């Protein structure tokens, strides 16, 4: 019990730094989960967020119709015909796409690999090809052709979309839980490392190993302290998820995400236990914390969807518990029925990682004891 009490005394002494870290991690997770990014840029309801800059060099009836057509879908901004201004607009992303409307030709500037560029260009070509088809049919003047083109392009297929606002919010909730990789790991590694610097202090450590307490018992009590701290962090984050996503809270997806993240606390605390056996100085906590949390968050798909990661990255990531945690989160948000069968394997793998980390951590601890005694 004395180890356990000391553990929480040290935690309490470092409460300020643990609180700051927890607050920052929560802020980053919520901001990231709710910010509008590339993942939902194909949603038609977001097309008004696409800013299209245009340089109006030729105001013919055909081009006026084109501007009118684009304006119905996107947000248009007229830009003067100045290379520096166009460059600045694209650099600072005040526009996602720029079109130069000439008398006979159309030129575009766009951000590479952007879905917005692909979508806008598709709309432009659709208008121009339809206009051209009416023009070649010689059924009237420019004005009539422009009117027919605009009327034609208003025809759209009836779409029934079962994706409700609720589904979108559940997706955001999934993103928030994926960010547990960053926030939980970040908080737990920093807090546990701060505590373990005290426990690993040479004088304290030497006094402890000559005490009557069994070393294995001492290490397990320390791990129990880590686990309780991990659960406390998980609880705070989960309360944040209930408060932030209150309409979806305690839905089946939310409950499953909570269970999956609770399981994830085990490999996270076990990993922190393993790493903390090697940390003796305050000054290296930052570097170790960043390499582990950022590295794992990037390759596991917490920041970037797993679907966009390459095969090699996925293979490397599968050797981390974070990958299986994110994989399960992604499966949970896609759940449409109470079929949980494919959620068990990733859960078991996370538990196996936890056991392995503890075993390695205990081996490190044993090695350290032997070396110190020698």
């Amino acid at each position, binding site marked *: 019990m004395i180890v356990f009490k000391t553990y929480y005394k040290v935690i309490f002494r470092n409460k300020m730094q643990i609180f700051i870290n927890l607050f920052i991690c929560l802020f*980053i997770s919520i901001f*990231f989960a709710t910010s509008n990014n590339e993942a939902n840029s194909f949603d*038609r309801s977001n097309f008004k967020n696409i800013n299209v800059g245009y340089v109006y060099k030729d105001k013919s009836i055909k081009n006026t119709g084109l501007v009118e057509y684009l304006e119905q879908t996107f947000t248009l901004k007229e830009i003067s015909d100045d290379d520096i201004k166009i460059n600045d607009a694209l650099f600072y992303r005040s526009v996602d796409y720029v079109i130069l409307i000439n008398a006979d030709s159309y030129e575009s500037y766009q951000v590479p690999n952007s879905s917005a560029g692909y979508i806008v260009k598709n709309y432009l070509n659709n208008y121009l090809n*339809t206009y051209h088809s009416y023009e*070649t049919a010689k059924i009237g003047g420019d004005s009539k052709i422009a009117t027919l083109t605009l009327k034609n392009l208003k025809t759209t*297929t009836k779409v029934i979309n079962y994706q409700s606002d609720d589904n*979108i919010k559940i997706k955001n909730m999934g993103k928030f839980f994926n960010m547990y990789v960053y926030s939980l790991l970040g908080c737990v590694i920093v807090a546990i490392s701060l505590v373990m610097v005290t426990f690993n202090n040479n004088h304290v450590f030497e006094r402890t190993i000559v005490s009557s307490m069994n070393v294995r018992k001492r290490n397990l009590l320390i791990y129990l302290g880590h686990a309780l701290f991990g659960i406390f962090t998980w609880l705070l984050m989960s309360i944040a998820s209930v408060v932030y996503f209150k309409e979806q809270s305690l839905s089946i997806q939310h409950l499953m995400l909570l269970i999956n993240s609770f399981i994830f606390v085990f490999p996270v605390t076990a990993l922190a236990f393993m790493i903390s056996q090697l940390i003796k100085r305050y000054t290296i906590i930052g*570097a170790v914390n960043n390499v582990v949390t950022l590295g794992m*968050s990037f390759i596991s798909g917490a920041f970037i969807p797993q679907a966009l990661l390459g095969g090699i990255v996925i293979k490397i990531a599968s050797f981390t518990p974070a990958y299986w945690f994110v994989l399960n989160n992604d499966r949970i948000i896609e759940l449409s029925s109470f079929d949980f069968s494919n959620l068990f394997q990733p859960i078991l793998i996370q538990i196996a990682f936890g056991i392995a980390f503890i075993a390695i951590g205990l081996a490190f601890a044993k090695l350290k004891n032997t070396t110190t005694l020698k």
Partner: protein
Amino acid sequence: MLTFFKYRFKSLISEKSLMFWSLLFPIILVSFFYLVFSNIGKENIFDTFNVAIVGNKENQLIKTMDEVKYDDIKTFELQYLTKEDSLNLLNQKKIAGIVEIKNNDEYELIINDNGSKQLILEEFLSNYQQKELLINDVLKNNPELLTTNWLETLTFSKDNVSNKSLSEKSNNEMIISFYTVIALSCFMSSFISANGISTIQANISKQGARLSVSPYHKRKIIIIDFIASLLIIISSVITLLIYMNFILKIEFGNHLGPILIICFVGSLVSTAFGYFLSLLFKKKEGLTIAMIIAMTMSWSFLAGMMGPSIKYIIESNLPFMKYLNPVALITDSFYTLYYYDSFAMCLPYLGALIVMFIVFITGAIMFLRGDQYDSI
């Protein structure tokens, strides 16, 4: 003076674990970034995807859908199912959507997601209906066209817009994330200066107590320590730049002088930041570390490290914020230099960084001034 500098430098680099992590940590981190970002943008969104068809499969629309190809890859894999079965598959996300044909010329699309596949499907069906309407319109106004080859001359896939580029440099926003790692590396190195300043304070370390009774003037000690810390931080940043440029082949443009100036100014701010925090939380090493981590991570996040879109959200909603964020300022200095090929464009950012340096160093001097000890 030179001898003292030599000893300070040796003393700082003798912290092996700190040196190891300061040099190695940004290299490991940037390698992770490279692994992840090198694949983005290469994925093919035009892979074949499954679509359920409910209704008459002899319909002309279905025949056309079956023939659509992009880059010789079939776009739609059609499955002819009942509505109930197709809804089940839609719920399990095994198909992108359901095309229901009603009365042979009415189509309805059923989806339950808003991804690229659903958009392609929706656009295809709308375009098909628009073309049907166009042909009807034209033949109603000019029926003689049926006797000509007008229908064959129709093209709907022609690209009428030519792509241009104002800069020879790629406006690839992923490069921003790499530049944030350089800025992050600068600021994580502030542990070195924080550690350095704490060891020369008489009330914190024995070394500091001995130094304070030595004949060296305190101002000289601090200046020498500052230069030694700065040198180590710059060396670690330059090692990272060499690794990124020569091994990972990340572009920086051909401006060696300005790149070194940005690194120097960034390291200057980082060294002063380490001093400032260490002196602000005297004797509370853990709190100094936690503050360096928390502030550096928040700054890096807002500068676009976890996703460049965050940077643009900040840029469009709170444009002044970047002038309070040294990581964003260093990142933007590199990015403007690379993109615009002009050192003048990054001068405002460097100016803001110098103002920050003045603020941090003035703060540090204020904390250091007038410390006298009757006994330690």
